[in-house]
């Protein structure tokens, strides 16, 4: 079996997790693209940790309002029925369990549910921003990542080696190979994305993977 990185299947699969009314925070980068794949008829509410409920699409060029930006500092619009608040309130919403899903990027994620995504000591220290509060506070923590590093190593680990963003907070990991639940100290492969096979995924992952008895093969193309 040959592996070709495919970010599309990751965001497509995550976008199908939500139900109407869910409050969702999408991290910068890959997670942001999830919003483009939410099925028609499903109305989610996007929270932006810099102080907004009801994040809308980017404005047309020339229509930017620089008082309205997302957590990456890019201009955004507001959905009808959205509202603004200060950062203490915003993280009160996050920490208080009022955000249903947070979707984050990954440097490493391990079978205990630990996530490392904010720091490579000595190399890259951007700071945790809101990621630690989001992983601690959101009801369901979804990690989105290509299954393999450019070097070919699996990003799903037995044990993270980088400084942690969150300890034992990860619920789901969606890669371009499949959807994994974190459970009892291992990854449970609940869905395997075609054309890969559960056995191949298990073999290529440098962590303890249990193939769920009802593991489905899903085609997301």
């Amino acid at each position, binding site marked *: 079996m040959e592996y070709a990185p495919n970010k599309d299947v990751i965001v497509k699969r995550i976008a199908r997790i939500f139900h109407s009314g869910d409050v969702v925070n999408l991290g910068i980068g890959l997670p942001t693209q999830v919003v483009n794949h939410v099925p028609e008829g499903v109305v989610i509410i996007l929270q*932006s940790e810099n102080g*907004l409920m009801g994040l809308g699409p980017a404005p047309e060029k020339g229509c930017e309002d620089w008082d309205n930006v997302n957590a990456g500092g890019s201009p955004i619009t507001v959905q009808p029925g959205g509202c603004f608040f200060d950062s*203490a309130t*915003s993280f009160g919403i996050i920490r208080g369990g009022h955000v249903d899903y947070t979707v984050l990027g990954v440097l490493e994620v391990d079978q205990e549910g630990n996530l490392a995504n904010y720091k490579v000591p000595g190399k890259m220290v*951007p700071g945790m921003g809101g990621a*630690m*509060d989001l992983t601690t506070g959101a009801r369901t923590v979804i990690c989105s990542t290509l299954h393999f590093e450019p070097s070919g190593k699996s990003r799903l680990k037995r044990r993270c080696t980088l400084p*942690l963003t969150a300890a034992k907070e990860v619920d789901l990991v969606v890669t371009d190979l499949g959807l994994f639940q974190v459970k009892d100290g291992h990854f449970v492969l609940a869905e395997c994305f075609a054309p890969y096979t559960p056995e191949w995924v298990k073999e290529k992952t440098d962590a303890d993977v249990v193939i769920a008895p009802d593991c489905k093969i899903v085609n997301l193309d």
Partner: protein
Amino acid sequence: MLEKPIITAQEAAEKVKDGCTLMSGGFMGCGAAHTIIQALKAKGLKDVSLISTDTAMHDLKTGKVTGIGHLVVDRCFRKITASHIGLNQETQRQMNAGETEVELVPQGTLAERIRAAGNGLGGFLTPTGIGTEVQEGKQILNVNGRDYLLELPLKADVAIVKAKKADKAGNLIYAGTARNFNPMMATAADLVIAEAEEIVEVGELDPNHVHTPSIFVDFLVKAERLEM
């Protein structure tokens, strides 16, 4: 209601002393007091301890700088307390070179620590950071079976905040996501200087829509520079 002095950005900058602790509102430059920041840059500031959610942007390739990033580039800070410095390459360079001390704080914890200082709380228990480097050196308390970090208040000598509208008494209304850290910072500093795009007469703001009550604001500055 008494009116607050409306001063120039230069006069405001004079009130920010070398060596002080400074809070600056704004998120990646959005909602920062750009006029005062430029006056601080012109004045030259030394040895200041900055508290800010981030250090805005500085791109080494394009040379583009925004918000409080202008003062980072000028080496105004001996210490920076922030949640995110990823879009300011100069902050990272200074940190890695050991030129500037950088303390990274989770963004929600930072907001709450500033609020705690302004609200007279001695600290608060948060689950954020448990099991990470953030817990190092901090007291852990278990409440009803869950571990929490005890986080302490964070205050400053001076805060510069940015509002959309102020009245002459000092009541402030923010716009959109430019609100961010400004309201908490306005409560947590000995001296609060508010830059506003528009300054109206006392009585013109709807008392139900004021975000920062007038009593927190010491001086007003009319915004002249709006770009990030």
